[in-house]
């Protein structure tokens, strides 16, 4: 559809962001235009959705995402997200979404204290958000995971609420790689427009450059549907 071809998805770069180029590439491979957004600007350039990519914004000084959260563009994104703008936070972007209080809980250092980098199997628990509706509930996907501060924590009441409201979007399958409470890899807000997760869908979008999969070495493209999901949700909005 013409609207899909015209979808414009912003990818934000902070000082210390690492995965903005991969995220922009994922957006293009999914069929939308990637719009580079700079943290110090205060103009969202009319984008239809925003990706907060991974990395170490502001060197992760203070806490992961803590300083980036007060960047001028971030204030705009928080307002727009409250108004329904689809926002995906990946890794450092997820940390940023919790620091911004768009999503509950927080991330602390991995329980084993090591940086972890692996091809991670996840179970899709909520397949009705703007970023996940092209998956099936219960589907298992494999995408890369790479972080040091990836242990998701929240108080028991918050965790119970997330579970009861179906807001656990992804759970680690098989092994819990960082000690996250209840194996939580990603969550959504109640409206389903804001999704955050620690693993990296943008690194599993093109055959030859993804995780190993049953169809071949480096052939995994399980991350692509994050981006095609949001494009489709814009078409139908």
């Amino acid at each position, binding site marked *: 559809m013409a609207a899909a071809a015209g979808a414009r998805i912003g990818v934000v770069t902070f000082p210390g962001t690492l995965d903005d180029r991969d995220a922009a590439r994922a957006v293009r491979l999914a069929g939308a235009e990637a719009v580079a957004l700079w943290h110090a600007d205060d103009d969202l350039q009319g984008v239809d959705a925003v990706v907060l990519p991974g990395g170490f914004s502001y060197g992760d000084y203070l806490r992961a995402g803590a300083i980036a959260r007060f960047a001028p563009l971030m204030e705009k994104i928080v307002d727009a997200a409250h108004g329904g703008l689809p926002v995906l936070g990946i890794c450092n972007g997820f940390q940023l979404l919790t620091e911004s209080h768009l999503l509950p809980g927080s991330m602390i250092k991995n329980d084993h*204290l090591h940086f972890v980098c692996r091809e991670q199997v996840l179970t899709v628990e909520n397949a009705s958000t703007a970023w996940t509706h092209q998956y099936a509930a219960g589907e298992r996907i494999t995408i890369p995971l790479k972080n040091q501060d990836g242990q998701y924590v929240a108080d028991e009441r918050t965790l119970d609420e997330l579970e009861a409201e179906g807001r656990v979007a992804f759970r680690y399958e098989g092994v819990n790689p960082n*000690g996250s409470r209840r194996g939580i890899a990603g969550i959504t807000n109640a409206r389903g427009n804001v999704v955050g997760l620690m693993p990296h869908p943008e690194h599993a979008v093109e055959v030859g450059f993804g995780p190993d999969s049953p169809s071949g070495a480096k052939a995994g493209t399980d991350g692509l549907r994050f981006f095609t999901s949001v494009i489709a949700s814009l078409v139908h909005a």
Partner: protein
Amino acid sequence: MGRVVVDVMPKPEILDPQGKAVVGALPRLGFTQFTSVRQGKRFELEVEGAVTPEVLAAAQEAAVTLLSNPVIEDVVRVADAS
């Protein structure tokens, strides 16, 4: 010149992986009497003049909005350290 000290600690119910690593290393140096370590952060905020009640109030606000994340940390001290 005035100085305000802000101390931030991980919440008691939050596992502190860094403190746990430190407590594991202590016995290797012969410090066998320490059963637990928790690692926090200390901030020193400087102001031009004296530390007034207004300065302390502003430091308290900065402590709970930026210097700490109330989900995982407690501000345990905001004090004049001039």
